């Protein structure tokens, strides 16, 4: 049975604010004008990368999430440089807790901010219950599919999540009558980012990247970003990249900066390289219940270090070697 509908009927609109409306043509023009296909070295420090590519008021996205392959060295630098009035896609934990604690976030497209086995985020509670940070609701799949729509270069994607719920009602999605089935379908607005931040296992100097293990939403987020900052555990040769091109998950032309950052995901884990720093995370989680202790954490671990190298010295190489021993192999 083929149901002919001459226009797409919108059945319902979410009441949540659309913090960053999709603009596929604007994105196309930006990419055309700014992205470079020449093989030029993009190696730089985290200080330079954040200073050059992130501005106050930007919409930023991070991948994967706080305790797993998150770009923590870049996040700490973002906080040191005090980039303000950020809009953020909230699918995370430690990285977003830190940004919220430093009071750098105005708007949050939230899906989940919490500590899984430990419990809920005290920092999120303080930020949102006080009315300081505005929120719109999404599911994990919805946020990822919003990146996917942007990666496709379109303005929305139809899905079957969020239907019938308050998650939809407080989102900025729409429900339309599917022109083919006639059934309600949820339309998610594409989420094009000003800046994406991703930590990878290996990259060459031009920005060709490899990720081991699960790819989370790196594929989509990388392609949904106007500017993309990569931090990498290891810099490898372009010759090595060309031997296994099928392993390049993010090609260089998407990338604006490549920041060498061994242990860049600490205190989170990096699969096959080092396990999460449970003691550090648990201490942070406990401290985060108290605003003053949260401030003390930032003073010590973020503001108190001028670079990722200093942070690593503060953590201590013996501790990091121990975390390397604790990670499971293949």
């Amino acid at each position, binding site marked *: 049975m083929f149901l002919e509908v001459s226009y797409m009927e919108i059945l319902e609109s979410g009441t949540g604010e659309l913090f960053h409306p999709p603009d596929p043509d604007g994105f196309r023009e930006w990419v055309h004008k700014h992205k470079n296909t020449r093989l030029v070295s993009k190696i730089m420090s985290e200080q330079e990368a954040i200073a050059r590519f992130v501005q106050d008021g930007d919409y930023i996205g991070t991948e*994967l*999430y706080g*305790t*797993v*392959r998150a770009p923590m060295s870049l996040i700490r630098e973002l906080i040191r440089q005090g980039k303000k009035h950020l809009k953020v896609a*909230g*699918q995370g934990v430690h990285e977003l807790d830190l940004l919220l604690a430093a009071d750098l976030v105005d708007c949050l497209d*939230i*899906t*989940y*901010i*919490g500590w*899984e*086995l430990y419990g*809920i985020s005290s920092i*999120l*509670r303080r930020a*949102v*219950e*006080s*009315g300081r940070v505005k*929120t719109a*609701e*999404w*599911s*994990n*799949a919805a946020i*990822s*599919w919003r990146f*996917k729509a942007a990666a496709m270069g379109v303005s929305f994607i139809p899905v*079957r*999540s*969020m*239907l*019938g*719920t*308050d*998650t939809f009602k*407080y989102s900025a999605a729409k*429900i339309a009558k599917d022109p083919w089935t006639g*059934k*309600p*379908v*949820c339309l998610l607005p594409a989420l094009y980012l000003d800046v994406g931040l991703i930590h990878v296992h290996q990259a060459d100097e031009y920005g060709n990247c490899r990720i081991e*293990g*699960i*790819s*989370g*939403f*790196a*594929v*989509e987020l990388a392609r949904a970003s106007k500017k993309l900052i990569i931090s990498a555990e290891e810099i490898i040769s372009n010759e090595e990249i060309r031997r296994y091109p099928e392993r390049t998950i993010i090609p260089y032309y998407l990338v604006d900066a490549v920041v060498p950052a061994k242990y860049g995901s600490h205190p989170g*884990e990096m*699969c*096959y390289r080092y*396990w*999460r720093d*449970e003691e550090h995370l648990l201490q942070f989680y406990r401290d985060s219940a108290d605003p003053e202790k949260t401030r003390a954490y930032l003073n010590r671990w973020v503001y108190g270090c001028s670079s990722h190298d200093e942070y690593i010295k503060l953590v201590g190489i013996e501790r990091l070697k121990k975390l390397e021993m604790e*990670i*499971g192999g293949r």
Partner: protein
Amino acid sequence: MNTKYNEVEFLICLAASLMEDGTTAFVGTGIPMLAAALAKKTHAPNLVAVFEFGGTGASLENLPLAVGDSRTFHRAVAASGICDIMETAQRGFIEYGFLGAAQIDMYGNINTTVIGNYWPPKVRLPGSGGANDVGSHCWKNIIIIRQHDTKRFVPKVDFLTTPGYLYGPGTREKAGLPPNTGPYRVVTNLALMDFEPHSKRMRLIGLNPGVTVEQVLANTGFDLLLADNIVINSEPTEEQLRILRKEIDPEHYYI
């Protein structure tokens, strides 16, 4: 409750017993992960555990601490990404989903977003995460709630994060959700519930040892239906407890 085991251990064993061999389960952190690991080591060695950020078919020899950590794809058959996993669920491949809840109503609708008004909220909870997707796309959803009381079992959830049977029979499909999907069981520290097929309302089908029907009703903030034959749920076996304590969670992260 029996001194031989604690409530969490009981919940894990009860949830594990609901998992079938040779099927697929969407597994989140906490009790579902332990239940899936236990099921794999006992009656369901061919259970395929699926984790939302990309792991499919992990061995679960070591307990994951997060839904994206490396243990969720250790010795797995595939390590992809969240879009692939969620699209797999949306295409109808995932049989069981596991969900937790801060609040639940008689149609199995779940709140994990806010307590009180939406803005500004009295208590801000973590949000949907993958729960809305799991609740929307899996064929059968099992909801695990550690504390069965009237604060959690409420007439109306403050915020409907994840769809159950919404407002009764047919409303799920009318909203556009896939037919023949929805909540399947609710497991708590007091009892086991299902959903009566015609009304789609929550129904008591099993009592945990030592718990009475009156106790369950007194701790439920809505009219709970009663099955004709309410059984007593089985206690964990010595073997289940041994595997759980010695092999699955020897560090006692959860139990």
